[in-house]
């Protein structure tokens, strides 16, 4: 796994411009379609933007939960790949994911997971171009810390509120 990549996310730097959603859906669906984007930016409270996408956990609970082996790991990039023909839309992977990251595509109704764009993610490119650098690409081996980033957006937002707004943040979300 020499070419293993991972996207570092900086919640505090995210402005919620959602260029990443547009770039992602443009790359994968050939259409500006944020509902079908692999990366989604949640906003539990105005001003707290939480980019939410696959963190490539080292033990892959989604793959273990799949009853039909529709999910597999890309050896090059360590991303989770979806075989759309095998997927039965059962939703097991959504419940197995610690952050409930996967979701069903609004049109095809198959599960959608970040595939890291074969090692060159579009979302990172537009984030750097816009100057926010909330998403950055690092080349590192899989490790246990990745799973810490697979969290539900509302939990992330609560931590973020305290960090950004101080004591007032505890009652914000």
């Amino acid at each position, binding site marked *: 796994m020499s070419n293993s990549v991972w996207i570092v996310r900086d919640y505090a730097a995210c402005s919620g411009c*959602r260029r990443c959603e*547009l770039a992602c859906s443009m790359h994968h669906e050939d259409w*500006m*379609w*944020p*509902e079908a984007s692999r990366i*989604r930016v*949640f*906003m*539990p*409270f*105005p001003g707290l933007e939480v980019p*939410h996408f696959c963190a490539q956990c080292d033990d892959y609970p989604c793959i273990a939960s799949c009853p039909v082996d529709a999910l597999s790991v890309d050896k090059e990039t360590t991303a989770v790949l979806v075989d759309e023909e095998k997927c039965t*839309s*059962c*939703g097991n992977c*959504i419940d197995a994911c610690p952050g*409930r*990251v*996967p*979701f*069903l595509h*609004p049109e095809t109704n198959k599960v959608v997971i970040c595939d890291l764009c074969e090692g060159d993610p579009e979302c990172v490119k537009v984030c750097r171009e816009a100057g926010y650098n909330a998403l950055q690409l690092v080349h590192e081996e899989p490790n246990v810390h990745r799973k810490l980033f697979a969290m*539900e*957006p509302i939990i992330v937002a609560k931590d973020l509120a305290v960090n950004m707004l101080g004591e007032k943040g505890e009652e914000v*979300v």
Partner: protein
Amino acid sequence: MPGGYAGKFLEVDLTREKVKDVTFPDEMLEAYFGGRGLAAKILWDRIGDGWSKLDPLSPENIFIALTGPMTAIYPGARICCSGKSPVSNGTVGSTASTEFASELKMAGYDGVIVTGKASSPVYILVTDEGGEIVDASHHWGKIGTDTIKALNREVTVELAKRKPKVGLWREPGMIYIGPAGRTWSVTLP
């Protein structure tokens, strides 16, 4: 149907609590396009000669929120809110840049036309299946950020209940009023 339009408009009659889909002829959409143009045409058709007698804050006034043909095609994200203005007694053509515009278009609607007056505070929930009027009495009196927070939670829980397997629902796009709208403030800030 000219390019760029989703094809139907949502008409909400709050007095009778009825929701229906309306369409406009192609010639009209080609002649008056965009939020302001089409809204002026709709106001002309529906109010017309009664314009000078119409009280802007009465239930006879119409609230129109329209997207244009370029909305939801990057970078178009504007919604145009129109009606008879209580400040100037002319037409309002107020545009706002929100997620609501592109999400309305993705739900298959080009705009929302609201008529009448509800008996209690309500909000209009637009999904892919259509629009519906939902009671919002318990949200009355909140300031803007509290409204966003409460509706985010309420709508995502409601959508997750309807389609439990889809995964996490993202927060809806919305337009709402705050204390100024609640108290019918007509003074410009």
